[in-house]
């Protein structure tokens, strides 16, 4: 069982890294810094609903860590990890209190990710002017959350895990 779980998690991390790569190939719509679709969030959300909270954290944390040491700068690591962790924390909390369906939780994750990143940016470069981006970041996070929510809803309902746990 333990080996199975490790293999499974490794596979999820690999999938989420590939999704990050695929997303980087999509044409970038530049409006404000930090907006993205968040395809890599799909395996994380799947883990939230089908595996354990710690699995979701592991998948996201290891993906960001690996991508950062392979391709990115330390600064982008700080941004990604902040956005990622805040997003997962909010999704786990709202999953726990059972107020929303997958769609609502995905939207919360998207918005929390964007707000987390802008707050850390305000802190790092010490420019409250970045808060001008707030409205567009909320809208972008909501729309991305809806798109990811639709996909996750399909996956969570259709994929049966190979082990009962």
């Amino acid at each position, binding site marked *: 069982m333990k080996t199975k779980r490790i293999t499974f998690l490794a596979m999820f991390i690999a999938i989420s890294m590939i999704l990050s790569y695929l997303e980087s190939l999509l044409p970038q719509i*530049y409006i404000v*810094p930090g907006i993205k679709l968040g395809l890599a969030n799909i395996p994380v959300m799947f883990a939230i609903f089908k595996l354990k909270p710690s699995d979701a954290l592991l998948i996201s944390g290891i993906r960001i860590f690996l991508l950062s040491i392979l391709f990115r*700068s330390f*600064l982008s690591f700080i941004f990604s990890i902040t956005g990622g962790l805040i997003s997962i924390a909010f999704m786990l909390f709202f999953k726990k209190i059972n*107020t*929303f*369906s997958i*769609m*609502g939780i995905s*939207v*919360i994750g998207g*918005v929390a990710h964007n707000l987390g990143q802008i707050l850390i*940016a*305000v802190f*790092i*470069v*010490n*420019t*409250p*002017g*970045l*808060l*001008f981006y*707030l*409205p*567009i970041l*909320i*809208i972008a*996070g*909501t729309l991305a959350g*809806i798109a990811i929510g*639709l996909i996750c*809803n399909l996956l969570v309902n259709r994929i049966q895990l190979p082990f009962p746990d």
Partner: protein
Amino acid sequence: MKLKRNDIILIISLFIIAAVSFFFIQSMKKVGGTVLVLKNNQEIYKLPLNGNIKKRIEFDNQYNQLVIQDNKAWIESANCSHQVCVKHPKIQYSGETIVCLPHHLVITITDGEATFDSFSY
């Protein structure tokens, strides 16, 4: 797909919050008078927004070409990795900011009066 009532309420509320904060920010916008250039959070240049200025900001082979014209400021070119600062729209309102994270460079508009800048979060 089954949505809960709460999902709908959440999505609608987020759109309302975005719209309200957009109009709030819009109402506080006023054209600034000064362009501040900060490197590593230290002010290095203070330039008039109504000037006609081209300035190459260069440190250790990292450059950003700043242009001020028609009461607007923007980065014309730079040799940073993501080019986010170059793609950023022109700025003119107090508190508006262009950030070049790889170069630790911030271009921000102020007017010396109380602005969105002094709005503490």
